[in-house]
C-alpha cells in the first residue's frame, strides 16, 4: 500500500484533484442555475 499511497502524499493529491474539480464543476453549474432562476424572477417582477 505504501508504494501506491505513500510519499509524496499521493492519496491527498488524488483526492484534491478529484474533489477540487468536482467542487468547481458543481459550483459553475450551480451559478448558471442560480442565474437562470434569478433572471426568471426578475421577469415576473416586471
Amino acid at each position, binding site marked *: 500500500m505504501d508504494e*501506491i499511497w505513500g510519499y509524496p502524499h*499521493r492519496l491527498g493529491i*488524488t483526492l484534491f484533484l*478529484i474533489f477540487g474539480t468536482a467542487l*468547481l464543476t458543481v459550483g459553475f453549474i450551480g451559478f*448558471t442555475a442560480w442565474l*437562470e432562476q434569478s433572471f426568471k424572477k426578475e421577469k415576473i417582477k416586471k
Partner: protein
Amino acid sequence: MEISALIKNEAEKTRSPEDTVLVWPNLVYIELISILVATASLLFLSIISPAPLEELASADTTPNPTKAPWYFLGLQELLVYFDPWLAGVVLPTMIIIGLIIIPYVDPNPNGKGYYTFSERKFSVAGFSFGLGLWYILIVIGVWTRGLDWSWYWPWSDWHVHMSVTAVKLVDLELIFENMFGLPKEPLVTLGRYGITVANLITWVFFLGYYAVGFTVPFLLFRNFYNKLGLIRYNLVMFFFLSMSGVMLKMLLRLTFNIKYLVVTPWFKI
C-alpha cells in the same frame, strides 16, 4: 427540430412591436456600460496586483521553482503528467480549436438571449467540467507546488526540500509485458519503432477508450446522436473524450504509477 422549439420560434416571429425594444439605445447602452465596468475592473486589479515581472534573466539567479504567470500554471502543471509535446502543443491547440467549434456543433436553439441551465444541461455541465479542471490545475500550480516542483501542503515547511520520491513510474507497455509474460522482441520494426505485442495491446487499450466512448452514447442516447448528426456528434465526442481523458490519464498516474499509456520513438501519450 422539436415541436417546442418550433412553437418558440413562431412566437418570436409574431411578437408585436410593443413587446420588443430597440437595439439602439437599449442594448448598446448596456454593452457600453459592460465594457466600461470590465475595463475599470481590469485596471483596478492590475493596480492592486501588478504582473509578476522580474529583472532580466541571469545565470546567477536561478529561482526554484520557476513558475509561469498564474494563468499559464495550469499548463505548466500538465507537464508533470504529459509529454512536453502533448502538454505544451497538442493540448493547448485542442483547447483553442475545441472552443472555436462550439458554436458550429451546437444545434440547440435554446438559451439565445437568456440564461438557462435546464435547457442545455449537457453543454453547460461539459463546459463547467473543463473549466473546473483548468482552474484546479491552476490552483495546484499556484498554491501547492514548491521547491523542485514538489507537492507542498499549506502546513508543510516550504523552505525544506522534499526527499526524493520513492515511487517508480512505469509505462503501461512494461506492466503488460510483466503481467502476461509477453515477449520483448518486436513483431514488426518501422525504422526506430519496434512494435512489440505489449505495445500493440497499449494501442488497443488507448484507441479502445475512444471506441467505447464513441459507441456507448450512440447506443444509449440515440436522441442525442440524432440531434447532432454524424459529423457534429463525432466532433463533440472526440473533444469531450479527450478532455475527460486528460483527467483519467492524471488519475492513472497517481493511482497505478502509469507513466505513459502508449510509447513510440516520436511521441508518448
